[in-house]
């Protein structure tokens, strides 16, 4: 992809010269100039975790993005113009992230920027986006957008945030699994969001968090934390991220075998991990939050089917070319949906070039209902233009015979919380 961005550059030069030729030969009978100009590609800067701890996510974000772009371009692009993706590695590092946005805006003349998952990269990059007046569509699931921390140029229309996800889980956990919960989470901002929002929601449901076990982000071995889980724990709520997740679940299995408390985990703990890895058998019967069900369900929608095929994911959630290469299915749909939202926003606002960026943002802000469709294969969503955050269905699956089977779908309303910001009041 990297090399593409180079050749893209030269292609852009080529385009310019074609346009120049066009203007000279703008006479009756020839393809007219305005048409040639308007078919110049829409340039979308794609900030991607190719290296650093987010790399597994980055790879699949990339594949999903390429697939979505192909679908959109094959069906006529945006306002008749093709999308061109300019990718830049952010190294899962905030400073690099901000520099990538700078490149998009000033070096590659991108129309908008998009991508990236890890919150610190988003938070490090967003101020730059605001300053560069570059619309920045993130697919991060962090609560940073709706919390009001960022700015009018940063939006998260394609994926529900962690606050919504977590609070929507609370009723299910309490009603189906147990009232005494111990939480195991990474000891940094992402884990703290889980800790704070889940315990608030769960306690308001009448449940009790009996222990909280934070695990340092640099940890590569986890067993020593498990004895901190009290014996009377009914439900173990676990969420872990980073390259060591497989070690985490394996050691959890070694420790408890089949005797432990009921498990409720965020799929992050096993994202991109093959669930048939030896040592993970103990997960059978446990529950997972999934942003989007990894395994094709019996009642799979045609849209999921279409999306799955387009990205190249088989019915088990792995790459069609390599069954060991498991996707980050629970998150990556956000890229697909966000690109479709950009397309729609540009079409509604009649976007033609960078001076229309604020019109594009206003167009997206005025969106509300996003029904289940090919553009939204994960499910229907309601977008809140004031907080720049989308809200959608959440899925809870049960591990059954080595596969995740959908057990419960939350309503969109379960994910609502009061607005914490109104970005539309900020000026451009």
């Amino acid at each position: 992809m990297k090399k593409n961005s180079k050749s893209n550059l030269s292609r852009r030069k080529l385009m310019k010269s074609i346009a120049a030729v066009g203007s000279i030969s703008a006479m009756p009978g020839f393809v007219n100039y305005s048409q040639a100009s308007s078919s110049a590609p829409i340039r979308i800067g794609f900030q991607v975790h190719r290296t650093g701890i987010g790399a597994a996510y980055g790879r699949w974000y990339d594949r999903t993005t390429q697939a979505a772009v192909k679908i959109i371009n094959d069906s006529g692009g945006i306002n008749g113009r093709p999308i061109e993706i300019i990718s830049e590695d952010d190294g899962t590092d905030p400073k690099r992230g901000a520099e990538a946005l700078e490149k998009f805006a000033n070096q590659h003349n991108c129309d908008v920027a998009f991508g990236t998952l890890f919150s610190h990269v988003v938070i490090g990059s967003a101020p730059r986006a605001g300053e560069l007046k570059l619309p920045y569509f993130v697919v991060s699931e962090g609560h940073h957008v709706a919390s009001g921390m960022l700015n009018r140029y940063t939006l998260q229309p394609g994926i529900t945030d962690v606050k919504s996800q977590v609070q929507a889980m609370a009723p299910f956990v309490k009603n189906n699994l147990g009232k005494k919960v111990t939480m195991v989470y990474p000891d940094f901002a992402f884990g703290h969001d889980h800790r704070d929002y889940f315990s608030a929601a769960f306690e308001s449901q009448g449940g009790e968090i009996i222990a909280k076990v934070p695990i340092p982000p640099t940890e590569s071995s986890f067993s020593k934390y498990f004895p901190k889980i009290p014996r009377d724990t009914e439900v173990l709520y676990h969420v872990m991220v980073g390259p060591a997740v497989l070690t985490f679940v394996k050691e959890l299995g070694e420790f408890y075998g089949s005797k432990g408390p009921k498990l409720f985990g965020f799929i992050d703990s096993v994202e991109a991990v093959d669930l048939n890895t030896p040592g993970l058998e103990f997960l059978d019967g446990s529950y997972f939050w999934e942003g989007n069900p990894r395994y094709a369900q019996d009642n799979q929608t045609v849209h999921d089917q279409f999306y799955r095929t387009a990205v190249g994911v088989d019915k088990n959630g792995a790459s069609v070319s390599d069954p060991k290469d498991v996707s980050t299915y629970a998150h990556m749909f956000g890229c697909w949906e966000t690109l479709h939202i950009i397309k729609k926003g540009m079409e509604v606002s009649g976007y033609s070039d960078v001076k229309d960026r604020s019109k594009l943002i206003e167009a997206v802000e005025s969106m509300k209902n996003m029904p289940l469709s090919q553009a939204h294969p994960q499910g229907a969503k309601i977008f809140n233009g004031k907080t720049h955050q989308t809200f959608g269905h959440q899925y809870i699956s049960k591990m059954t015979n080595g596969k995740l089977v959908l057990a419960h779908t939350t309503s969109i309303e379960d994910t609502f919380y009061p607005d914490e910001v109104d970005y539309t009041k900020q000026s451009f």
Partner: protein
Amino acid sequence: MELGPYLLFASLEGLVHAAVLSLIALGLSLVFGVMRIVNVAHGEFFMLGAIITWWVSSFVSGNPAIGFLLALLVVPIIVGMTAVLSDWLILRHLKYDPEATIIATIGILYIIQQFALMTFGPDAKPVEQPFNIRLDLYWFGFSAYKFFVIFSAIILLLAIWLVMSKTKFGLILRATQLDSETAQAFGIPISRVYNIVFGLGAAIAAVGAILIVPIQQAHYLMGGEPLLLAFIVVIIGGLGSLKGTVAAAILIGMSDGIISVFFSPNIAKILATLLVVVVLIIKPNGLFGTTKT
């Protein structure tokens, strides 16, 4: 969990940790002891050992034990040769000047790490355990493989001790460590010895990596943490002292587990780091002392 079983569990986990740590630290300590240089790239040799183990075992289908044994045979040699090469190409030319060597090994660190990223990609690579048996110890379960790790490390440490104390090669190393100039005067080929020691240090770390990958996974960024811990061990244990290093590794490995019984793990890490600072400040010329005169 009740305190008794909890402490038992923490001790067992601590022993696994200590076993691998003592191998990594021993490699570092050997290099420092004999060559008087700090090898910042040591953690990357460990990482390389882990990733190549994954690579080697991915060639072997069927019983994972075969891949594991193959790795034990091949990986230390590959990693050792890489280290020998970097000594021969780089460090030798710096005349082992302490500061230049540190800067150069930081360079080697990035090169090996990024080479692993380019070649093997950014994902964590799982290696299957040679045998997958869970022992149920009533209060908690424990993997039989982890006992195997402890056991193998002990055997290996004994072997290294025998080599160091009973063979001529060991004698040469000890002589060089004591006084390299005199050793040279007695006809010991110092540059060859340095070359071999640098390779050997890396190879020992690689063995530690082979033992640990079936428990953790191979990842191109995995070298940083063990490097810091190995530093801590080497500083606390005293230089070039096999016994000291092993004792410190057990202390650090166990305490990391046991401190985290009582304190937040993050605090445990902060405390361990602080301990090293205190040791170094109280004995400024002691363990790592290089006085310029």
